């Protein structure tokens, strides 16, 4: 089974709507990273979370890591077509410092 479960797999929203993407692990996350990927391209770093209960925001995107450090959510407020893409969570779940495990990604479509 996938060590890092990401949901939903895909999401279609109307421009201006809020949305949330979740990333869940059965093991403690030593570091959680959110990336955005445009189709067929590289990954753009969004945010890094390391402490239980930590929350970070950048423009209209907010990411949280729960107190138990096993689940993270990415929330987009007032979505825009520029937010469309694939959102990936990556995590260090073995305390290895650098071996990241990735979720399968969430494909976000924002309709104008």
């Amino acid at each position: 089974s996938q060590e890092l479960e990401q949901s939903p797999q895909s999401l279609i929203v109307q421009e201006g709507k809020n949305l949330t993407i979740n990333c869940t692990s059965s093991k403690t996350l030593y570091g959680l990273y959110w990336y955005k990927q445009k189709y067929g391209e590289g990954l753009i770093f969004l945010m890094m979370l390391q402490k239980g209960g930590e929350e970070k925001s950048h423009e209209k995107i907010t990411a949280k890591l729960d107190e138990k450090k096993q689940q993270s959510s990415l929330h987009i407020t007032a979505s825009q077509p520029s937010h469309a893409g694939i959102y990936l969570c990556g995590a260090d779940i073995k305390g290895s410092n650098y071996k990241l495990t990735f979720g399968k990604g969430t494909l976000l479509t924002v309709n104008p």
Partner: protein
Amino acid sequence: SAVISQKPSRDICQRGTSLTIQCQVDSQVTMMFWYRQQPGQSLTLIATANQGSEATYESGFVIDKFPISRPNLTFSTLTVSNMSPEDSSIYLCSVDTGNYGYTFGSGTRLTVV
């Protein structure tokens, strides 16, 4: 944060041939990482490349198939050898930039025909 230049961005190759992918970083980094992203799948770590030593491969990946070079602290190559259609994927290099997380190259989209 570091900036990575990855080449080529895409290629279509004949089965049985090899392709070498290059990553150039604008600053010195100790470790560079190579990932594969198969269609519809998540990223999988292929190997970790340290300068001055042999790369460390993850389970399921071998040096004969994916030889890696790391001649200095700003450059690395990954070769996909004796390619088959199953090797069609996006290949990405990555470096640890500390507070900015792991920076990724723009990816190489490989299609094997």
